[in-house]
């Protein structure tokens, strides 16, 4: 297949994800402006960070002053799954030059990863295919996020539309996508309970680290006792 056809094939493969990304990026732009970021800053973040869940977490914490340490910590930890995805995808990137590999990793998202892995199982993963889906998703995400920011600037008080609850709704939506089995439930329960208790008893944003740590410990303990480990397939579409 020619390089151009491969690029187009990558963009077409990810089309259902593009449709789903539009309303979410619109919402991101709207909320970001409501949180006090300018339209330009909102666009800048969508262009350079390009990570849905993390962008919502980041602007959720965007208060005055922004807790820098916590922001960096959540950025690392929310996206740490990309280390595993990259580790797995890296094995299928034999056709990529070293600069292409780094550039390609910039476009790594849960969705483009899943499609690239699928492709790599059927045929060899070409850079053209990979960048086709990456660039398509990046473009759609940025156009919709800019549109949301421009529209949001004229919207007024977000609480009137229930938008103050939008972060919670987005996080719940992302979490349901991560559900794989009862262990996910145990992690949810541990993180949620510890986070709520710490929030009630300790000032500041420590509840995020405490809750996250509790969930991670529970996951490690439960898995250590399991004799037939198998996970990792949760994000692959069928």
């Amino acid at each position, binding site marked *: 297949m020619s390089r151009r056809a491969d690029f187009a094939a990558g963009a077409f493969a990810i089309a259902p994800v593009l449709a*789903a990304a539009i309303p*979410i990026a619109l919402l991101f732009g709207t909320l970001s402006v409501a949180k006090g970021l300018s339209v330009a800053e909102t666009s800048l973040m969508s262009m350079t960070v390009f990570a849905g869940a993390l962008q919502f977490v980041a602007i959720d914490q965007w208060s005055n002053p922004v807790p820098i340490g916590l*922001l960096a910590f959540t950025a690392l930890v929310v996206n740490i799954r990309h*280390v595993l995805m990259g580790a797995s995808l890296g094995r299928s990137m034999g056709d990529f030059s070293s600069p292409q590999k780094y550039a390609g*990793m910039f476009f790594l998202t849960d969705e483009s990863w899943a499609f690239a892995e699928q492709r790599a199982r059927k045929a060899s993963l070409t850079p053209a295919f990979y960048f086709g889906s990456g660039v398509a998703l990046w473009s759609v995400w940025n156009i919709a996020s800019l549109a949301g920011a421009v529209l949001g600037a004229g919207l007024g008080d977000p609480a009137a539309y229930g938008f103050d609850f939008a972060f919670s709704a987005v996080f719940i939506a992302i979490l349901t996508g991560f559900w794989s089995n009862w262990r996910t439930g145990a992690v949810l329960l541990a993180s949620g309970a510890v986070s709520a208790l710490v929030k009630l008893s300790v000032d500041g944003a420590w509840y995020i680290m405490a809750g996250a740590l509790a969930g991670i410990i529970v996951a490690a303990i439960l*898995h250590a006792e399991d004799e037939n480990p198998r996970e990792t397939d949760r994000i692959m579409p069928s």
Partner: protein
Amino acid sequence: MTLDPYNMVLIGLVTLATFAMRAIGAVVMARLTLGPVATAAFEAMPVAVLTAVAAPAVFLQGWPEALAGCLAALVGLRAPMFAVIVTGLLSVVAFRMFLS
């Protein structure tokens, strides 16, 4: 159209942290293998962090938020992501009208 220097530094920081996570995997970790405990811990991280961020906002604010959160989560077992968000938003507005 304004770009505050402090906000730009923060966005740069988040960009770097995000890119580091993306690049480390493909470049370094593709040569390593993780044990089952480490894999489980890594995989649980996004769920654990997102839950820790969201739980107080859902369960410590009042009945409307808690009920809307549960309803959205139930919808999420079957429906796509955007339906979950819409359910959460509409139901929180409705619960607030009826419960307060």
